[in-house]
């Protein structure tokens, strides 16, 4: 038999004090967990900013590095920034169309068994360590041909593909079925319905997923170490040659004995971090805007 306490107001209270205590405890635990997550990001951003900001100047973005420099000539990491722009752009060009088409096929056309199977494969691909992708692309393109920006872009595209297609699938699933039925009920073909009704509804969401995928792979180091890292110090836009990239440059500079190199590595890390933060914020903004549009306003 449970005991019954009665407050002065005559309200029944069974073990109210204990339930309140448990509630407070769980709430504080959740708060602490949230604080830890925020604190980690805060510490990372703060420490990178503290060391990187002093070395951040225009030369970093516009001047090439000078190897074994004994003078105080200004130098930067322009070759790495250009390399990252070229490699990531090419990777996006490769992964975006394939990723979106895969998502359209799976969400709009594929029978359920194929959809479930391929979705699982995409999730597994998403979980493959980046360094394994690097070794795979090394064996595929680099052995016998040498390193190149193309190979680096292909490796990053392999990482982007599951990100883009999974996020696109989720967006397509949000498009209400009643819209598809409205179009099909008019006697409009399936492909036309997808192209003219479903896709325009999802453009914002697809863009959001793409930006997040770009932000994610722009910081990838491991695959590029294998396939695009034996590089000169001159800026090059030619993806047929090996291209320097920001993450690889940070890694290499961190092993240098020169403290000025360390400072430049921190500055480059700060730029990369800011790019990723801004891209994520931009993606969030796009996502909110898109959700509002899908709600019909």
């Amino acid at each position, binding site marked *: 038999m449970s005991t019954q306490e009665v407050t002065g107001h005559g309200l029944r209270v069974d073990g109210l004090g204990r339930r309140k205590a448990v509630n407070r405890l769980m709430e504080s635990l959740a708060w602490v967990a949230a604080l830890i997550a925020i604190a980690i990001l805060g510490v990372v951003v703060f420490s990178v900013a503290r060391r990187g900001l002093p070395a951040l100047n225009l030369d970093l973005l516009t001047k090439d590095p000078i190897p074994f420099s004994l003078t105080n000539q200004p130098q930067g990491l322009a070759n790495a920034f250009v390399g990252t722009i070229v490699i990531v752009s090419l990777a996006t060009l490769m992964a975006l169309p394939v990723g979106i088409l895969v998502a359209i096929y799976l969400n709009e056309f594929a029978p359920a068994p194929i959809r479930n199977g391929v979705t699982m494969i995409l999730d597994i691909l998403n979980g493959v360590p980046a360094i394994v992708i690097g070794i795979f692309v090394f064996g595929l393109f680099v052995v016998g041909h040498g390193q190149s920006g193309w190979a680096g872009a292909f490796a990053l595209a392999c990482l982007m593909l599951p990100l883009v297609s999974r996020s696109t699938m989720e967006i397509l699933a949000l498009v209400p079925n*009643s*819209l*598809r039925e409205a179009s099909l*009920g*008019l*006697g409009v073909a399936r492909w036309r319905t997808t192209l*003219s*009704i479903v896709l325009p*509804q999802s453009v914002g969401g697809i863009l959001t997923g793409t930006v997040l995928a770009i932000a994610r792979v722009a910081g990838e180091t491991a695959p590029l170490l294998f396939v695009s890292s034996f590089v000169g110090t001159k800026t090059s836009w030619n993806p047929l040659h090996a291209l320097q990239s920001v993450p690889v440059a940070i890694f290499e500079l961190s092993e240098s004995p020169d403290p000025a190199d360390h400072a430049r590595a921190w500055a480059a890390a700060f730029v990369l971090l800011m790019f990723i933060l801004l891209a994520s914020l931009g993606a969030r903004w796009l996502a909110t805007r898109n959700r509002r549009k899908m709600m*019909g306003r």
Partner: protein
Amino acid sequence: MEGAEEMSTTIEPTVRVETRRQPMPPRERLEQIFDIQHLDAIYGGKPAVKDVTMEVYKHLVTAIIGPSGCGKSTFIRCLNRMNDLIPSFTQTGTIRYHGTDICRSDIDAVAVRRNIGMVFQRPNPFPKSIHDNVAWGMKVLGIKDNVNERIERALTQAALWDEVKDRLKASALSLSGGQQQRLCIARAIAVEPDVVLMDEPASALDPIATQAIEELMHNLKSEYTFVIVTHNMQQAARVADMTAFFSISHGGEGQRWGELVEYDATEKIFTAPSDKRTEDYVTGRFG
């Protein structure tokens, strides 16, 4: 005394409504548009509708009534292959449309739906302007001449033109529910189908919007053939020339499926049904 006996066998209808129906010509003089034979519709191995055999006549409004879960919507969605979109769905039997069995796998469902349009339970306008909602279907389906006249005509037929003629560029989503549903009807008739299927078109609407939709069905049936699913008996009595009553049958092991109980002129269904279950339903003793 004979008259008194007749009185006692005549059911007093609880549904007393003004009807817009005209006297029906005899059924053999009517042109068949659908000839449905032994239709079974099955979801994931479980029958939703069993053994439906009926005809639908041209330029009439045919209502499908019955309690929830009797397979009315499933049935009407068979008529334009809308159920093709549901992966676990299968059907047997034949649906002849002007003599052609549209269930055959070599018949293109897109072509079927081009001829047999559909209006859905919930208004589902495209997130485009009012004008583009009506124009898009015509554009995609290759209707290119007199587009603006056609849009005006479709919106007028759907009793919406006067309310929207000054804001055709406004978003369709800014319309009220009833206006959206009439826009969906305008969109469906703008591409000039042969048959318009309506799956509870007024269930989400207020009485005034409902009346507008019923009026437009009445006014347009000389051009189109309507099949309407409704759970509202008054609505069936008001608009339909023919009425089919579906009910739920129970088998062993908790199985249940919908079946066609009775199909006749609306007048007959509501005043002198020949099946006890129809009588119970239309007099409000069940359902």
